[in-house]
């Protein structure tokens, strides 16, 4: 039978406020599945024209698929969210790019015609599930020197990246981190972030963590507005003595969830749903695991090539800030300035936090907002590095693009 590849669009995206992992974090007594359930419900509330029975799939990512992040989260969270039992679901894992992979896998299915509309998102509760929980790396990795021992520790891979690119100094990383905090604080002040946050009720029974009883998480907990270079200069370098990577120029350990609606463009239009971004291309690529932070470079190369675009065609960048040095390496490769205004306009993971498998959709939600405000931009990209040496890139087209708005592209 003849097939037509369909255009795939990003309809909407939401997330919980991100929290700090650990006993004092806002989500310490909140389940991971509940976090993502609230995101799915918010998507449905925000899009009342969407009959939930039309949802063809729920793809949810988590890195540590144990306990409240296990049990085929895509299916169980769908039921918990009140989706009809006819809606199936599955779980995804590509570590930090989990939600991004959920989006691309769903997008592939939509383009192929398997789905009309679906939910893609992710969750990571790093407080309940610390990085590395339950892992059992094959001893051959080390015995056969398949990867360097540092490959399993993301902070060490970031130090390795500083080694590879000596000109990407700690100073530059710290300056980048300060700007991320400033941009995030400004985005909050301008109300750019809150509109896509789902408030989450949070219980606390431990008085050492603060006031007890039920509370409400309405803002990102990790934010440190007013951070200065001086503040950052004195921070410890936990991954290497006299190293360069500090808690200040990296994303922290966080809890949070995201979800998005991905649809065929004709279906979204038919149902009267918003079309916030149009998928152009995507690609994932592998690199040496011990310098995983460079991953976005080859993945972006691949995605640009597939789209027939060049880096100069991209008007807005949402780069995940697992580590400042990894963003710098990406920008450096393309000759983009550290403080280029097209990059991470609202700040990034250094400020908001990075609950691993959930972050991909945060990048998309923020890019979608920026598209709406900047009709002169035609293309944007979301990219992130991934543990064990990978990168992922998704290139999007701005449906609001208006040549007359003065855009070059």
């Amino acid at each position, binding site marked *: 039978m003849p097939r037509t590849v369909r255009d795939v669009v990003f309809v909407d995206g939401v997330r919980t406020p991100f929290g700090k992992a650990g006993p004092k974090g806002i989500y310490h007594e909140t389940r991971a599945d509940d976090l993502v*359930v*609230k995101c799915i*419900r918010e998507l449905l509330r925000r899009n009342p024209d969407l009959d939930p029975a039309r949802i063809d799939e729920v793809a949810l990512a988590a890195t540590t698929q144990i306990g409240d992040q296990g049990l085929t989260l895509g299916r169980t969270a769908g039921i*918990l*969210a*009140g989706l009809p039992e006819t809606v199936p679901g599955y779980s995804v894992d590509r570590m930090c790019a989990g939600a991004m992979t959920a989006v691309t896998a769903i997008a592939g299915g939509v383009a192929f015609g398997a789905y009309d509309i679906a939910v893609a998102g992710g969750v990571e509760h790093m407080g309940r599930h610390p990085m590395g929980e339950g892992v059992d790396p094959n001893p051959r990795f080390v015995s056969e020197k398949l990867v360097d021992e540092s490959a399993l520790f993301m902070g060490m891979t970031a130090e390795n990246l500083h080694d590879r690119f000596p000109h990407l100094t700690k100073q530059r990383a710290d300056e980048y981190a300060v700007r991320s905090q400033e941009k995030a604080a400004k985005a909050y002040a301008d109300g750019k972030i809150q509109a896509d946050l*789902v*408030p*989450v*009720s949070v*219980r*606390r*029974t431990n008085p050492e963590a603060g*006031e*007890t*009883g*039920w*509370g*409400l998480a*309405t*803002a990102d907990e990790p934010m440190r507005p007013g951070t200065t270079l001086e503040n950052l200069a004195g921070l410890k370098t936990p991954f290497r003595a006299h190293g360069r990577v500090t808690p200040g120029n990296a994303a922290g350990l966080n809890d949070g969830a995201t979800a998005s609606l991905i649809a065929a463009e004709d279906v979204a239009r038919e149902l009267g749903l918003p079309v916030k971004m149009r998928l152009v291309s995507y690609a994932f690529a592998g690199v040496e695991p011990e310098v995983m932070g460079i991953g976005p470079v080859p993945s972006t190369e691949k995605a640009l090539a597939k789209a027939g675009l060049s880096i100069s065609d991209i008007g807005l960048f949402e780069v995940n800030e697992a580590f400042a040095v990894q963003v710098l390496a990406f920008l450096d490769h393309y000759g983009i300035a550290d403080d280029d205004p097209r990059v991470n306009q609202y700040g990034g993971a250094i400020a908001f936090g990075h609950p691993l498998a959930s972050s991909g959709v945060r990048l998309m939600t923020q890019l979608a907002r920026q598209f709406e405000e900047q009709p002169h931009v035609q293309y944007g990209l979301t990219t992130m590095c991934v543990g064990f040496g990978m990168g992922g890139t998704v290139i999007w087209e701005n449906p609001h693009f208006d040549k007359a708005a003065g855009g070059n592209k």
Partner: protein
Amino acid sequence: MSTTTTELLKGAAELFPGEVVTQAHVRHIDLPSGAGRFALITLDNGLDHTKPTTFGPQSLANLNTAIDQVEKEAAEGAVVGVGLTGKPFIFAVGADLKGVELLKRREDALAIGKGGHEVFRRLSGLAVPTFAYYNGAAMGGGVEVGLHCSYRTVSSALPAFSLPEVFLGLVPGWGGCALLPNLIGADRAVSVIIENSLNQNKQLKGKQVFELGIADAIFEGADFLEQSLIWTASVLRGELQVVRPDIDRGEAWDQAVARGKAVADSKVHGAAPAAYRALEIGAAAKNGDLSAGFDAEDAALADLIMGDELRSGIYAFNLVQKRAKRPAGAPDKSLARPVTKVGVVGAGLMASQLALLFLRRLEVPVVLTDIDQERVDKGVGYVHAEIDKLLGKGRINQDKANRLKGLVSGVLDKAEGFSDADFIIEAVFEEMGVKQKVFAEVEAVAPAHAILATNTSSLSVSEMASKLKHPERVVGFHFFNPVAILPLLEIVRGEQTDDASLATAFGVARKLKKTAVLCKDAPAFVVNRILTRFMGEIQNTIDEGTPVEVAEKAVEPLGLPMSPLVLLELVGPAIGLHVSETLNRAFPERFTVSPNLAAVVKAGKRGFYVYSAENGFKPELDPEVAALLKQGDTVLTEEKVRTRVMEAVAQEIGLMLQEGVVAEAQDIDLCLITGAGWPFHLGGITPYLDREGYAERVNGKKFLPQGVASVPA
């Protein structure tokens, strides 16, 4: 005010050292949409949802302290509103009854009422609006604390919401009686406070709480608190107006109160005061004067707490909730053997009802046998028809119906049916010879471990077992009609019954969701013996010359679910006669066989009464029965009849306890409540016999120590 409240509660707390204390946590949040800073109070006793949050005096004091804090913040403009919610799955389930049981003095009872009022009322007097978020189970004082708030939301997942006070023998005395009719109108309030409460404490679900107008908004459980707070922000920002329907304070109010009285009369026949007190307060609340209403609630609470009906109500509640779950004298659970297949001997109506019950609760194969194929088919057909009814009502789905139908079968050959059954119950003709023969046949084909149970209502279990090779596996398993509805199951230990068989029987009872009470193998066990003595004594007074209506009216003040002769009609005069004959053989000096009853049975009458549409289906003495009656010339007053009947009951129970028919008087009461539907306000019957003096007059002592089902000394 705060100081006196504090003192009041401090005094009360000293009386109740064992209180499970609820904390009132105050936490501040930023409301969505920039609606401002908000203080959210969480009621939490620190235990999981199986131990619901309650209000004892220390708990009230904690809430009072929390309100001190938010009151100050509200006055200073530091918060724009105050909310109240509960721990996961539980909002709050009201006063701690254990504390109520300990109260000895009216002034302490009054202090509890006043203490609750004074704390809760503060929520309506803050400088900012207050919000209750009914997130989970809310009962009694839990419901009431929310009624004092300016606004309420409810979770659609809320499983249970009620004002159970009247059911127990109290009034909703922390604002419920006065506030609820003023919020939702008198008629709806009567439904919640009187009708639901007296209807076995019927619970409302979240949706009904919203539809009744108790809550202003309803949100789904998955993000109930979040949506409630977003709604709160809209209300506080003035974006959302909460509109409540006007209350009809005219005739409709009086009609509602009259309806409440009619409901109370039909349930307790004026015999228990709580419902009437609640209605009085509700009637007075028509003028909207809440303060007067609260004072009236305090007085009613104090009176009722110092009255024995409430003590009996709490006693009965504890029997049904606690003692029923841990049957006195039952052997260790670990001795019980698994039951994976059930056999039923007989396929008559009783046998078929038992088959249905075992099938539905155990979900294992159930085999019916009888003496011919027609009867077997009829029995299986009955079960199938009942399954179809359940399916039609949506109580089970098609898969479950298919499963249940697949599990039930009927055979003629006992060997074929019972060779792998673990539990075989007989419900054949009530005659010793027949039953012994049936058990012998069953024993010949059943596995060695199978329990042989008998549903006999009056025959000796030991005698029935005596001719078997293994009499140790025979137990009495006496159900009450209607089997599906009455919870009681008298489990009878025969002389030779062993612990493993008994433990298995109790295990089966638990799965059947029945209230099992262990009885000795004594004539007619518990309920039938007491009811037969009770009815027999009434019948005696009639036979001796007292008019039927006088004898019937004599026991009306007890508030029994039905009059003795209506009960006889339900049981069937022939069965009543049969049991009286059995007991007469055992205890001829106390149990008589009424010649009039025998005549009625012989005439084939189904009862003493006839019912006609012209007379509103009220019972009227059947003229044909009247013609049969041969009465003497001793005419007693109602009071004399009552004394004679209740003294007979007191004597019989005294003897049963001496004989060791059950472990304690509590088991007698549990049996009467769950097997005969005798009311909570009587505490079954022994608390009533104690407080009216019958027990002491007849037996020289009370059944229960002071403080059990009565105000402590």
